[in-house]
């Protein structure tokens, strides 16, 4: 670190303090947000952090500054956080930042208008990011990472400040999304419910009035929740909303949405084009799609096994696994078509033996009973129209539309 003169140190600190006071007095949320954005690594903040590390008596400067002394509860811990962040003490930085944030929220509560929403959002973001980093530090030193949880409860408090009536409510969805991120990361998604209820049941605020960015994020996460619940229609709605409203330039975001939307669509019988998978680097789905097209059970199972960890982590494994029935359906349809070419009059009678043989070709070792069971399930779930004659071991297909398409409806349970 280059040597910094005391005068320079004073100048930097005073500059920051003045900037802070000016932003508050002129109600400039953007400038205030920049001053709070710890992880932005902006040069001015970095130099301030260096200055603070040289000059240990910044508190006195804050107290002396008549404009900023009233914000001492915000700035003092913020400086400490900045110092620690610069030095890499992330846990300490988090602690100080949370303290500062608490004081800020207290202040924010008192501000009538919502001018400082931007700054509050920066705080919500920073505290989450900082908590994640602090948790990483804690985990590496063998301690239990709990800061993200703490950040979650802090953001819940912030949400409470925003969720009421009035102009501040427009900022509530941003905090909600940060909360989602935390809950999904922690695996405590059940905590989302209360927040969602608060957002969706409030009639006083139209959902469409929230900023688009927040709406997209919100729909993405709630869509994911619906995927967990295997509520494919709702998941499709939400994720499609997110996709259509997402900024087209943000390919990473589109990819994240598609990651869930594709399995949902597959479950509804809608297959993506391969160019889509290529464009958004979702090739893990390509074999799944191919298996669906071909009725290749082996391919599906391989694809699932190959990407098992990935699918399990993203939570789509069970969804994809359920595609098996569609693959069976496809396989039966293929057999049916081949039979029809040979002997149209007998085409609607599929012998169980033939199906078992076909599965054998796919290296699926299943005996008659098991395949019979699958056939009854296919009929039961209305993927195949017809009936199974137990005595003769034959699947008798309906002559009209024996393999109904899903056409956007989920497989009946």
């Amino acid at each position, binding site marked *: 670190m280059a040597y910094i003169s005391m005068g320079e140190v004073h100048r930097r600190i005073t500059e920051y303090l003045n900037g802070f006071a000016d932003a508050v007095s002129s109600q400039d949320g953007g400038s205030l947000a920049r001053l709070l954005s710890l992880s932005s690594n902006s040069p001015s903040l970095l130099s301030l952090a260096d200055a603070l590390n040289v000059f240990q008596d910044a508190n006195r400067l804050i107290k002396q500054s008549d404009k900023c002394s009233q914000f001492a509860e915000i700035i003092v811990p913020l400086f400490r956080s900045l110092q620690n962040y610069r030095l890499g003490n992330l846990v300490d930085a988090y602690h100080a930042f949370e303290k500062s944030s608490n004081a800020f929220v*207290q202040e924010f509560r008192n501000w009538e208008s919502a001018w400082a929403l931007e700054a509050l959002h920066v705080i919500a973001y920073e505290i989450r990011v900082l908590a994640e980093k602090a948790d990483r530090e804690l985990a590496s030193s063998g301690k239990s990472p709990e800061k993200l949880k703490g950040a979650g409860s802090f953001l819940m408090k912030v949400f409470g400040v925003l969720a009421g009536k009035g102009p501040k409510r427009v900022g509530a969805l941003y905090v909600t999304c940060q909360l989602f991120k935390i809950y999904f990361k922690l*695996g405590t*998604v059940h905590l989302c419910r209360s927040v969602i209820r608060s957002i969706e049941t409030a009639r006083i605020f139209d959902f469409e009035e929230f900023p688009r960015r927040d709406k997209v994020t919100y729909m993405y996460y709630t869509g994911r929740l619906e995927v*967990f*619940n*295997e509520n494919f229609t709702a998941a499709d709605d939400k994720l499609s909303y997110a996709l259509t409203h997402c900024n087209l330039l943000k390919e990473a975001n589109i990819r994240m949405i598609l990651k869930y939307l594709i399995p949902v669509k597959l479950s509804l019988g809608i297959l993506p084009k391969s160019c889509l998978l290529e464009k958004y680097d979702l090739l893990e789905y390509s074999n799944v799609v191919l298996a669906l097209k071909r009725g290749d059970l082996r391919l599906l199972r391989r694809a699932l096994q190959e990407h098992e*960890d990935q699918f*399990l*982590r993203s*939570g789509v*494994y*069970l969804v994809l*696994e*359920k595609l*098996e*029935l569609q693959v069976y359906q496809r396989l039966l349809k293929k057999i049916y078509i081949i039979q029809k070419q040979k002997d149209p009059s007998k085409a609607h009678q599929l012998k169980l033996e033939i199906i078992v043989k076909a599965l054998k070709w796919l290296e699926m070792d299943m005996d008659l*009973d*098991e395949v*019979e*069971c*699958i*056939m*009854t*399930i296919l*009929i*039961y779930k209305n993927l195949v129209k017809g*009936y*199974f*004659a*137990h*005595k003769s071991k034959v699947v*008798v297909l309906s002559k009209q539309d024996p393999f109904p398409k899903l056409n956007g409806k989920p497989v009946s349970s």
Partner: protein
Amino acid sequence: MMNQGGNTQTVAALDPSSVENRYVVGASQAQTSFYPSSVTGTDPASWNVHRVESHSTENGNTSNSTYHHVQHMDPSTRTVQDGTNSAAVASSSSLGTANVQQDYSNYASYPSSTDPYGYGSTGYPGYYNGYQQQPNHSYSQPVGAYQNTGAPYQPLSSFQNTGSYAGPASYTSTYYNPGDYQTTGGYPSSSYSHQTTTWNEGNYANYSTPQYSSYASDTTGAYASGNLATTSLQYQQHYKQWADYCNQTEVSCAPGTENLNVSTASNQVCQVPGVSGGYTTSNSQNTPSFTPSWRLDSSSSQVSSQMPSQTLPQAPSQTSSLQPSVAVSGAYDNYWKHGTLSFQNQQVSPMQPHFQKPLEPKTSYDNFQEQQKTACPQVPNLQYASSHQAAQSYQPPLQPVPSLDSRRTSKLQIQTNPRIASNLPLGLQKTDKDGSNNNAAAKPAYISVSFPVSNEKVLPNNAADSVLKPSTFPKSLRGYVERALASCKDDTQKAACQAIMKEIITKATADGTLCTRDWDNEPLFPLPNADVVNKDTLQSSISASLPKYKRSPSRRSKSRWEPLPEEKSVDKLASVNNDTAKFGSWIHANEKDKKPVSANLESKNDGLGATRFSLMEQKSATKTFRRPVKRQCLIDGNAADNGDASSDSDKDQNLTAYYSSAIALADSPEERKRRENRSKRFDKGQGNRAEINHFKPKNIGTGNLYARRASAMVLSKSFEDGGSRAVEDIDWDALTVKGTCQEIEKRYLRLTSAPDPSTVRPEEVLEKALLMVQNSQKNYLYKCDQLKSIRQDLTVQRIRNQLTVYETHARLALENGDLPEYNQCQSQLKILYAEGIEGCHMEFSAYNLLCVILHSNNKRELLSSMARLSEEAKKDKAVQHALAVRAAVSSGNYVLFFRLYKRAPNLNTCLMDLFVEKMRYKAVSCMSRSYRPTVSVSYISQVLGFASSVPSGEESDEKDSDGLEECVEWLKTHGACLVADSNGEMQFDAKASSSSLYMPEPDDAVAHGDANLAVNDFLARTSS
């Protein structure tokens, strides 16, 4: 005369002060202003001031002051009473802390009623208060006299209540107000009755019943607590005071006199019983009857009468005169003291006002008088018995009279009675200790009650302060802290105080500056209340004071009334009216009152130096009290929160009543602590309560291990918002038990208190116990019981290495299909495995998987369970089996499921067992949809696991036939249509069955949903 009457009423007691103020208001609002200031001024001192003021007000005081007073009074009515009471509390506490406390409790109840009134219209409120007080007194008197009478009194109270309801209306119109007063009075009276009952029986039941019958649970709760704390002596005093009051009222003394009376009100009440005859002729007769002992009263009454004419200075003189009189005759003195201290005076005075005021009061008066008469005879004896305490209480009144600071009063008390500590809490404790064994517990409660009152008063003051906001807060805070610490008897208390204060301060800062201001006033008192009883009383008082502070009489009435379905419809209607009409007005009044308070304070300063003193006194006296009050106020917030506050207050009061009763019953400190701990559990929900509880534990600090642990728990919980420090302070290691029990066999009993080392088995004994259980031939219930007790012992000793217990128990539970018990073990095992303890990790992760798949149906949890499986785990046979089962279940593949079922490793079968029925039903309904026309039952039997899937050899044939029969039976019970084909083989008619299948109710279903609770099992459990 009206004014005088009002004054006289106010004179009756602290309430009287408010009453007086109100009266003054009624007469002339200008006068009221003085009153309020005086009332608010000092709880103890305020009384003096009030008295003085009231005198002046009667002469022509401002209504505002009365309002403040009233509000303060409410909380402080108690405070007013406190005024006298508080004086008593501060000063008199030492003398008869019990009495003082009792008075306070009484006051508190009164205050609440009075508060609303005061809020509605200061002048009117004052009147109302007076009315209320009167009713209360009368009620209390009867109650005090006899519990039986208490019932009749309750009716009276109900009448009063109706009156009170009218009162709210009266906010708009004064007439209504009187009614309100009556109602409020009624409430207080109920509290009195409770007290009396407690005195008589000292039982919880009594408390609860009286309270409920006459007053809402809330008021009763507060009262009860106060009552509990207060011993019969106090009641007696009250009764006497009543009588005195009556006499005084007859005299229609000047407000000042009334105030004096008020201070003596409790005494009067006591007197009334004694004077019973006097009650009937309330004024004249009472005086005569009093003459010996009462002479003091009468003299006081005379003095009071003089007082009205006289100004503030006179009041002090009167008080001083009273003191001398006290000195002259101890018993009388006692009575006097009580009267001065307590509400009784106030009540009496209200009665008088009522009489004077022809309106509703007359009827009520009549009733009251009659009641009083009846009560009086009974009461006198009690009063006399408690005369000694009364004497102590008298001293406090004296202090108020001088309008000295509470400190002074305390000093005075000290002088008079060594027992009476300079500080109220100390005095209370001392009195408790010294005191009457019987009353000891009760006394503290009373003290606490008085505290609340003072708090209430303080609140108004605080509100005023908040309005003013100047430098007072820091000072008050400092003073508060100092006082709180000073009040601590020992180091543990001090530490507790410090912790509490930190919490309080942090909370206050978080809440806002107002809070901090309030805190200043409030916190001190709670801390000082070291004794459990005090704590309880504090809570109760706080709760009572809170509602009062909120000031919405309607609220109180609502809350009180609503809980009491028995109350008369008239009352309800009245309450409703009050609510609607009063709320708005009250709220405004409150806000106004706050401002006026400040103004009043100023006016007090201007007009009455004494008022300031009184304020100061109140502050000092109420410091401890204030904390709770403030918190409540803060939490409840402002007027908007009234509804909540009232409910809270109700609850609190109930709790307090419960506590008080419990306290009364519990002679041993341990019992008290235990009860408190239990009650704390209930309190956790509400911050206020929790805080209160915290206070209690801290105070208890000196107690035994149990208490300490309990307090630690409470502290940890309470401190969660305040900061983590307190939690960190808890030394869990110190709390960990090291068992000494050598018994191998031990029945499980869910702990309701900290574990006793002598009943906890050390690790080596537990190992033997585990072996014993494993080799035992007894039934599952016995084993489960034993294993649970082993687990409990492990837990309390924090032994974390003995996996086999949990695994053994988990397996045992699985074998017996006891999922709840299994889940308990599994969750513990999860933690242990995560800590790196090996055990049979794989086996149990398979169980866990199966459990999630088959029984929770939580996709998210299943996913995370699967994602958590290591590569190694996926190779494990049991885990692989579990995963295969999962796949079968999710696809509905019943064939695969039952194949897996047949070859399940470990206890996977047991878990699958629990799912078999569902799977079979699903399979059959699937078959009924898919198969046409029929399926052979033998196939179904084979596929659905009734028979072995691979028939081979003769043995299996036999099994198959068994399985076939079972399958037929199962299908029939599920509504399947079976037909025999040409070969005589049973066939499942799919189409017919598709509409007739159903899931039969399980045979072992129990109405209460838990088969384990079935009688047979229970008997088996107890016999084994």
